[in-house]
């Protein structure tokens, strides 16, 4: 049977990620106006944010598909993509050009969500195999 908590978590993750993306983008714009943010530093931050968005969409799609069709292959792929998302989230938490307190808060919540999801995915894969 598909894991209901995992599905709920996917849904909540989708909404939260939209919020996260918009807030991070707005804060990058705010930082570029208030602080000195040269183009050499602004470009990587923006690029990584968009890559993270794409990865997130793929990750949620595959995870949701794998959970609902009770197949372990898409779930495994989603787990692998989660690793990439975690690295990117850590980048935004620690290695970004300017890390504001708000950045710390939302990235921490995102990492917590990723952790919880990963645990539930492993349990689901174990159940489907």
């Amino acid at each position: 049977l598909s894991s209901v908590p995992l599905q709920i978590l996917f849904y909540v993750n989708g909404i939260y990620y939209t919020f996260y993306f918009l807030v991070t983008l707005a804060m990058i714009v705010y930082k570029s106006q208030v602080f000195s943010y040269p183009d050499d530093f602004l470009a990587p931050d923006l690029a990584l944010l968009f890559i993270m968005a794409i990865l997130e969409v793929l990750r949620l799609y595959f995870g949701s598909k794998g959970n609902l069709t009770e197949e372990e292959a898409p779930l495994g792929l989603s787990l692998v993509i989660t690793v990439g998302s975690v690295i990117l989230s850590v980048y935004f938490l620690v290695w970004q050009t300017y890390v504001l307190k708000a950045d710390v808060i939302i990235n921490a919540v995102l990492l917590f969500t990723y952790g919880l999801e990963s645990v539930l995915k492993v349990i689901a894969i174990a159940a489907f195999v």
Partner: protein
Amino acid sequence: VAKLCVCDLLVAQCDVNCCCDPDCSAADFSLFTTCSVPIVTGDSHLCSQKAATYSLDVEADPPERIVKLIDQVNPSVFCIHATNYKQALSFSSPEIPTSENFDQLLKQFGSASFSAEPDSWNMNTDAQNPSDANETCRYKYGVPIQTVDAFLRLPSPVVSSWCSDVNPAGFLVNQATKCTRSVSVEKCGNIQAVSMLFYINSSILAKLYEFVFQVNITVQSIVVQSLNGMRTLLNGSDVLRLPLILDELCINIVLGVSYHITYTDAGEIIEAAASFVLGAINKEVLSIQQSFEISFTQVNTKPVPLSGNPGYVVGLPIRAGFRPQGYPFHVEILFAALVLNTNKYSQLTILQSTSNQDCLAAQGTRTPILFGYNMISGCKLRITADMKCQPLTQTLLDLLKGQSFPEYVASFGNSQAQDVLDWVPITHLHTSEQRIYNTFQSSCQIPVSLEIEVKWTKYGSLVNPQARIVNVTATITTTTAKQLPSGRERTIPIISSVVFTDSSSPAEPGYKAWPTINAKLPFDFFFPFV
């Protein structure tokens, strides 16, 4: 943070009211009234920064200073938690020039302005250069006129009144200078600056930096001034007359040069002519005064004396003119140029007061009306019993208005006679001095005063307003001349005046148009519903 002190200005001395000054002792602190610097903190954008607070405890006796090192927390959620960009929070120290990076630093900072990101501007300037190549060949206002060897020289006094030969003549800058040069009869052949050749030697370049087209300076006329000051114009003026010693005099010394340059509106010089005044000196003369002048005329135009460009300049005469003969209707005016007096000081004039103040004796002297100068003048008219009314009225009108009182006044100092709409017609008013109106006006009305009121306004931008004449009203006031018993005579004053009133409206700010948001939805945005 504890070591930073902004108010510590005096070295090894205690600054007044500076609580962070390390040179102050406790006794000094007890004399302070307040702390001028209450807190020294790090960057307040950070989430938590060190701060040192200084305060005076006035309750204690004597007052003492309290220093506290605290951690200040920025409560905002947008405080900087960490940065990975080293230069973010401090000013960067500039590069020290060495022999390796000097050229690059010069290219980056060597001009009048530079931006923090120089590479992004380089592409623009490269693209503009080819089109500018054509522009740099034209002479512009103020650019020194180039000749084959250096510049066209217009010697002028620098600091003292002695001539300096390195003053270049600027394009379109009409100048007239006078300076003193030391000469002597023995050396008169050796001093270059007193010989004609010095001034017409090198040819002028027609275009800037292009040696292909050169304009020779031709000698237009030569005037010879004798020792007693009498000047005669020479007939054949194509002969170069160099200084030579004759009977203990040195003749053909250049006393004045007047250059006339003709240019086109493309910024090229096509003709240059020089008129000389040559004189002679004898053994006692040690210095002469030379005068130099340069004027520019555009090709195919006659020089029109301007009273301002474009607004009138205070002190220059008002330009006025007539409708040409045979054009009585205003509609046809638009096709004909106005007729102006060639002497710019005679275009609009008023009566000039003379010392004997007798109107009929001093006919004909008039003074030009200069812009911005209110004038009043007058004379006294003696009326005897046998003067007839009509000729008297006519004489007085001629006296007040002059022989040719114009009909139009130029609204700008540089209005051309062809642009009739640029000219303001003069409005004539008649008023009578008598307040009580008699039903018979059969008695003689003679004009006694002419008042010209010129209303002008400031036109153009706030920082450089130009004066523009908007209205000219000429008011003639008449009074009744009562018939005198024979033998008696009466003196009446005749007054003419000019008043300039400023009728400018206050400046209005002019803003650029707001940028509009041009957001339109595509045609089929609401597809299923529309």
